[in-house]
């Protein structure tokens, strides 16, 4: 068992639920959803913990409808060579929402978008919560939920119609292309084209 769990318990008390060993030997710590940000910040910033790298964010829904939907965070400490999994349990019948960890790890941005896209989990405080794999006008729901039919909800003809009517260039925003941050460094002519909205819209134009 990862010693971080005991440290978490002494610091956060009953905000830490059960802890168990995963099949591959990693430790899984369950955290109450409302304390997630505090716990994660503590895990990242406390010297003895130093989980500075968020490897992945994903979610699990079980066939048993009574079981909670879990959002899973894979943490790694690059300096200590240690791993920890943190899980948050959400009631699939209620509102699926949890605080975003993007302010802590910028890399969580796309990971949380993927979980939102596939499971419909809302991440509060996420800077850019849009679909990432399916296109933005996708209207059939969240494909990895257990109540989602394998072939989708619409007929094949309707799926083809909606796909062909989608604008393939609408997927990429300037944030995604990381142009917004380097905006002052791009050539003037390109800046002008971006200002005209030739491709996407700049976030600070409004």
């Amino acid at each position, binding site marked *: 068992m990862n010693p971080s769990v005991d440290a978490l318990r002494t610091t956060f008390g009953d905000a830490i639920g059960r802890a168990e060993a995963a099949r591959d030997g990693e430790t899984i710590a369950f955290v109450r959803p409302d304390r997630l940000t505090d716990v994660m910040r503590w895990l990242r910033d406390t010297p003895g913990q130093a989980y500075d790298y968020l490897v992945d964010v994903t979610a699990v829904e079980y066939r048993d409808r009574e079981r909670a939907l879990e959002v899973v965070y894979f943490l790694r400490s690059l300096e200590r060579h240690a791993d920890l999994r943190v899980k948050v349990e959400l009631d699939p019948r209620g509102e699926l929402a949890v605080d975003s960890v993007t302010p802590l790890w910028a890399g969580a941005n796309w990971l949380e978008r993927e979980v939102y896209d596939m499971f419909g989990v809302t991440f509060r405080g996420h800077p850019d919560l849009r679909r990432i*794999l399916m296109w933005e006008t996708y209207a059939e729901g969240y*494909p990895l939920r257990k109540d989602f039919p394998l*072939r989708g909800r619409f007929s*094949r003809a309707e799926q*083809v*119609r909606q*796909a*062909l009517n989608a604008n393939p260039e609408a997927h990429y925003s300037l944030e995604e292309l990381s142009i917004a941050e380097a905006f002052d460094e791009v050539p003037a002519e390109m800046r002008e084209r971006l200002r005209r909205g030739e491709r996407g819209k700049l976030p600070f134009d409004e």
Partner: protein
Amino acid sequence: MKHVSKEISGSPNWLVTRFDHLINWARANSLWPMPFGTACCAIEFMATAASRYDFARFGMERQAFSPRQADVLICAGRLPFKLAPVIRRVYDQMPQPKWVISMGACASTGGIFDNYAMVQGIDTVVPVDVYVPGCPPRPEGLLYGVLMLHKKIKGESLALPALRDEQPLDAKGLRMPPDEIDEISEPFGNSVHQFRSS
């Protein structure tokens, strides 16, 4: 000079042929492929292009990575719905005459991916001339498909200009009636036994 002109008049430097034959011969033997590689079929496609199989032998010397200079669109791999408008636009940008080869099980039928994300056969999106079966097809398979396309091209006639008409999408944005798409996309083989969860 006299001597030279005499020699020319006596040599067989002209011939008589059908116009269709000549045009189709030229078209079939200088097909420039536009590769649309999305999956493992594209690996076999690359093998077909490389030295051992070398489809340049069949006049496909130049791969046109610009649709405006391509003659045959080769969809090598599965096509997700998200890419459907992209392949349609690539097809629309290709000038006539143009042909389409659907390479592999996924491009032709959706293959094993009978799910929410996958087009069940690219013929619901663009017209297809030759389907190459296989998962993925070996380079010989693709070459056989190319040769079948040669045969098809050699059977065309300039007297039938409708063959080369553009076929734009209809008012609904589809290229065939919806019930036809549903029929083409119906599960078959093993995926008949796939159950829908819910």
